[in-house]
């Protein structure tokens, strides 16, 4: 059965269809969650919570073709909630400071980039994950995040600036 058919069934309450829909995407869900929280227990909790939220609200999904972006959006929000909750950092958890990075030496590049991605503020981290880890197009990212493509470009630009990455062509 095709995805749209499964979605229709799932919306009617067919749990097996729902389970299949999720299972087809389980690895992606887990890896994305992991990219945010960097530990197994929290990533599993995020997946579980995402599935729960999707399960109780799939009826509200009007256009089946948006299932993927819809599910990804739930996952992203759940991941960001988790980061905010667990970093008991005073009131702002989105912690980034351009001052903290020094210009990296060549052999330290990957590690520094990794550190830098880890430190990115939630919305910028999301864009990096979607664009570079999941290879999504800017248009898909805009759909997933439900925001204008211009905003995606702006945020991507800022994320790259923050990471001191120089590949402007990405923004074209």
């Amino acid at each position: 059965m095709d995805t749209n058919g499964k979605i229709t069934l799932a919306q009617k309450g067919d749990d097996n269809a729902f389970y299949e829909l999720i299972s087809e995407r389980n690895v992606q869900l887990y890896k994305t969650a992991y990219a945010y929280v960097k530990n197994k227990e929290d990533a599993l909790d995020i997946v579980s919570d995402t599935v729960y939220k999707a399960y109780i609200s799939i009826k509200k999904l009007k256009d089946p073709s948006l299932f993927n972006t819809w599910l990804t959006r739930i996952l992203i929000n759940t991941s960001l909630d988790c980061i905010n909750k667990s970093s008991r950092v005073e009131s702002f958890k989105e912690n980034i400071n351009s001052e903290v990075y020094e210009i990296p030496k060549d052999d330290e590049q990957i590690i520094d980039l990794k550190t830098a991605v880890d430190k990115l503020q939630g919305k910028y981290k999301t864009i990096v994950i979607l664009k570079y880890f999941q290879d999504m197009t800017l248009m898909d990212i805009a759909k997933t995040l439900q925001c204008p493509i211009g905003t995606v470009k702006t945020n991507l630009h800022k994320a790259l600036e923050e990471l001191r990455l120089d590949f402007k062509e990405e923004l074209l």
Partner: protein
Amino acid sequence: MNKDSMDELKKEYDNIEVPKELNLAIEKGIKKGRIYKRKTGIKSFALIAAALVLAVGLASAGKLFNTNNTSLIAINSNNTLPIVGSSENLEKLLKTYIVQNNGVKYDQAIKGVVTNESAMQQNTVTEKSSLDSKSTANSIKDYSKTNLQVEGVDEEDLVKTDGEYIFKVNAQKIINVIKAEPASNMEAVSNITFEDNYNINGIFLRKNILVVVGNSYQNIDNQKGDQSKAYNMIPSNQVTKVISFDVSDKKNIKKIRDIEMDGTYTSSRMIGSRVYVVANKYLNNIGNIKEDSNIGKVYYSDSAIGKDKITIDYNKINYLPDSIEPNYIMVAAYNVDDNKEKVNINTILGSGNNIYSSDKNLYVAGTKWTQDGNKNAITNTILYKFAYENTGVKFVAKGEVNGNITNQFSMDERNDYFRIATTEYNTSVASTPQNQITNNLYILDKDMNSVGKLQGLASGEQIYSVRFIGDRAYIVTFMLTDPLFVIDLKNPTSPKVLGELKIPGFTNYLHPYDDTHLIGFGMDTTVVNEGGMDRARPKGMKIAIFDVSDVTKPVQQFMVTLGIGTYSEVLNNHKALLFSKEKSLLALPVTDSQQNYQGAYIYNIDLVSGIKLKGKISHTDASSNSMKDTTMVNGQYSVGRILYINDTIYTLSNGLIKANDINTLQEKSKLNLKTIDFSKVYPMEGQTK
């Protein structure tokens, strides 16, 4: 940097190992969703009876519990644990884990899904304390301390004071040292800064020693020239780092010790002069352990020994034969007063993210995912008990109970008995919603064997908060209403429900007021009907005083609501609360999203007039931004901690400290703090939703 680095990073992302529990996690989500749907459909009438006091005496207590005595799963005590011994043996041990992993099939998932609800939230875990930081006897300073779970067992926090100076963790990067007295003339004495790759989780203060705990990103040299390590970076790059400072001269603070250990910082405690730090180190890429014998190695370093990283000998790493996890729990212990005594590190194959500590023992709680005979997913709580010994900790026993805990307050120890309250999701799909979620209370002896239990408490609801006080347990469960249960634990082998109170809303944190009263912090809710299903919708915060002097009839004696859209960090972190019974003082940071207000709410609390708002102290007026600016509510002028010294209340945000009179709340003075202004680095706009 260039695009190649990003490609490398993408490779790491692609190589993230997917654990066997993933399918269980999915099943758990579906199961929980089903329960939610059914539950909300069925319980539609239940809530209307809100605000009703329902007393359940001993006679009827039996009804609350199903008699089905599912027994605890395998509880062992084992004083002489086997050691891992070598990389080869570790490989063998982990192989059993991998085999289990691949061998389990979940094709029938939906038929027998079990959702063991892990209500396990990691909110309140960081703990350390500086009870002993009390000044010497000749001082008559009166000042507040971190709100602790166990008297005498200090928990780390973002602010500590010695009654004259205040130390504040700012944006995880800086520690502000403020001379707070005299309050009319506060002074920013100095700021301690750290390496860029260090994030502070909290501090302890003991006399003239300031202890900082946090995470640091792994040093580069550790990975040098090791190709396979490059792929390890995403999961396990964090190192727990503890740094001691001599703060006897506040203008010239000296670093005197640092200790590093592999793994992500989990939590810590200070008892007397000893600090105990717990970290978890996930063993990534265990499938490749044969090719890369470094995978199972863990390191630590201690400036008391030298600069070098020391590999922990496999002969010093223990495991529990019946529960192998590709993860190490590491507990570091050291004496902050003695910089010659070496750090003591205890490593065990296992994992756990919540800790409870009495003055004698440390308990680390983890989640274990398994399946029952019908392939229903089950989550249990595994408990690792360590005893505090001369210079460190010693593993005592392992315990295992059904269900999951809520937070550190779900656990307690008294007279050598360990008590724990859990929420459990039942496995059989055929069962009705009411018995798909249940709650349990277990009492374990010193060897972690179960000696008493209550099971099936408040079926259909889940635990929101727990507080053990002496011989009693107070447990709040919630689905649409909030029952507060009073449970008698005097006889460890037969705990009994004494009484129950049902009120609307729920309570996230219970704090003892005196022997017969509790303060509850939670959310007021209203029941709305959505498409034929009743749901509880949070309205805003509430604070209540419960009178439990008649244990069979707990009563909500006073209650205040803070308004729609209000929220406080106290709801998931007890350390944000300031309470002093002697001073009739209750204060907490509150965010009011409706009014775009953030600040400290200061209450007068007593048993005559209840909880009365004395006033509010906000820092947002210090900003030139408009009130509408969300960075104001969430940003650097958001009050996070409140404390008092003598007759002054101090409120602290990242940008500011304010001193106000404790009685009139009149401002005495304020002082800007060095911080990192994130709102300037990142102006808010184009927020993702």
